């Protein structure tokens, strides 16, 4: 039964639009999947001891490259996407290579990458004549006389976006599984434990770390593109800077960054928290969701550092032998 559970859930999600669910549940599902994808991308390297506070930069590069290309040069997002990926890869290598080469780890790595995400935010704000500064920017609409435009990657129907987000999220999980089964993961785990020892048995520390960083950064960049095209609005605060970077880290931690579905659970958890609070107390009480979110994060890291799904998986494993014994 448990083996079939994921497939049943997936089928339900894929078929949900056919059953005619409303726009609001669709929006929730799309948001969960998109952020689930982004958090998964972050956790790909975060779980291996590389805690990056700079992923906001990659999200921002993705979101702003396509929107600026479309608005100023009429460049289709299909061409903007590869451009954004090249840019994100360049930044990832430019930051990653020296970091890994010179063994910038732990606190130092977190703070260097934090500088990166702030640089991205400041550049977006400073280029306000092109980007609209702190007010954000809206891609020129291609939906004036049609419901969708493939070349502009704009769709008025949320159903289309559900399938796009679902595809991205599944691809993210697939990458995670591939990484998990590769030699690189063993190498990375060895590096996370003891970098010198790993190097001494012949692991090319810089190359292995750079590889996983590139994958993680490129996926985050794609997440930024999809987020911008879905929301049809970008803002330097929501796609770059320290705020969204911390949001990614904590989403992944709350769900559990050591298990495949953990980051997704984190995305669902944070979204549900915000939505439930909004339904219960309305829009009038500002800051309540941030307060509870912050409090929960502190409690999580102190009492449940393995996250919601991580703790659930541990409890499940503890129960298994007992059940087997009972069955015999």
């Amino acid at each position, binding site marked *: 039964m448990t083996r079939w559970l994921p497939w049943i859930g997936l089928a339900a999600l894929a078929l949900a639009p056919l059953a005619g669910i409303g726009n609001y549940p669709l929006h929730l599902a799309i948001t969960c999947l998109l952020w689930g994808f982004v958090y998964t991308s972050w956790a790909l390297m975060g779980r291996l*001891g590389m*805690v990056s506070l700079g992923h906001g930069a990659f999200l921002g590069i993705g979101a702003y490259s396509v929107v600026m290309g479309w608005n100023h040069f009429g460049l289709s997002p299909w061409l903007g996407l590869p451009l954004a990926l090249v840019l994100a890869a360049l930044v990832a290598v430019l*930051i990653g290579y*020296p*970091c890994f080469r*010179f*063994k*910038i780890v*732990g*606190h*130092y790595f*977190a*703070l*260097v990458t*934090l*500088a*990166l995400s*702030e*640089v991205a935010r*400041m*550049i977006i*704000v*400073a280029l306000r004549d092109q980007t609209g500064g702190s007010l954000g920017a809206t891609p020129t609409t291609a939906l004036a006389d049609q419901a969708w435009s493939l070349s502009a990657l704009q769709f008025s129907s949320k159903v289309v976006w559900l399938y796009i987000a679902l595809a991205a999220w599944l691809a993210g999980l697939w990458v995670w599984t591939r990484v998990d089964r590769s030699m690189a993961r063993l190498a990375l785990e060895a590096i996370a434990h003891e970098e010198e020892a790993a190097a001494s048995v012949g692991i090319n520390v810089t190359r292995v770390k750079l590889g996983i960083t590139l994958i993680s950064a490129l996926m985050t960049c794609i997440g930024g593109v999809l987020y911008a095209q879905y929301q049809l609005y970008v803002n330097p605060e929501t796609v770059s*800077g*320290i*705020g969204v970077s*911390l949001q990614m*880290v*904590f989403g992944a*931690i709350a769900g559990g960054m050591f298990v495949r579905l953990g980051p997704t659970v984190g995305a669902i958890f944070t979204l549900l928290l915000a939505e439930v609070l909004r339904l219960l107390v309305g829009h009038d*009480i*500002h*800051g*309540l*969701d*941030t*307060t*509870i*979110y*912050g*409090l*929960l*994060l*502190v409690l*999580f*890291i*102190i009492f449940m*550092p393995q996250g919601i799904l991580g703790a659930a998986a541990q409890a499940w494993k503890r129960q298994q032998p007992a059940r087997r014994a009972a069955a015999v």
Partner: protein
Amino acid sequence: MGQTFDLFLLEAIVNGVLLGGILALLALGLNLIFGVIDVVWICYAELIMIGMYCVYYLHASFGWPLWLAFAGSVALVSLLGVLLHQYVIRPVLGAEPINQLLVTGGVLFLLQGLATLAFGVEFRNLGVRLPTLEVGEMFISVARLIAFGAALAGMVATYLFLKRTYLGTAIRAISQDRSIMPLMGVNPNRIFLITSAIGGALAGLAACLLVLQYDIHPAIGLSFGPIAFLVCVLGGLGNLVGGFVAAFIFAQLISVGGYFFHLEWGYVIAFLFFIAVMFWKPRGLFGGKS
């Protein structure tokens, strides 16, 4: 024409020096805590934000004289520092080092949320207007001058405390070897709490100085928090003197870079300089703890 150019540049440099004083004060508190407890308080700027609100309410709402409001703010933030260590940092001291950084990130959101809940999102101003000083043909803000002087005084006091008192010696000893000192009869947790109280008091002092220059709102911490961390890393984490020098370098880059281009570009230049230095000297300009 050439002379006016130089004058504005000189003004930018002087302002950079004054900004450097504030940054050095921010870095001092963070470095002290990192040097002794090995923890980076990501929520340091949010503690300052709470201190700024404290000054605002005590002075503008309850009508306390300004100096008393300042004292109240320093005391409150100092207490917050102690509580932060006792109830948030202490439980994770034995966990993965990065968890200690992240747990204070949770506190960042908590304090920001609480401030929004309690005080709303409006910008508030203390309403104390200090004059502008005219030196030659340059204009220098008195608020910044006071901040610079107070920041220097705070740093000298901290330095003397660490070097000349028995307690200061114990704190320096703990920061050098955490495992040996307990064997010598030093209670590390007591030292940690005292260090947290001093770190908090320095944040409270910074709050008093910043509230004279800036409007208060719940997200204000995000505008100078990251800069404070970068200054610390630039000087070498835990290196008090390094942080002091790095603060002035960083402030000059922001101020003079902002003069030549635009204020945000000044920040971009400073941040890029920081990243470049990390690759040249990964432990900071003046070496730090690993």
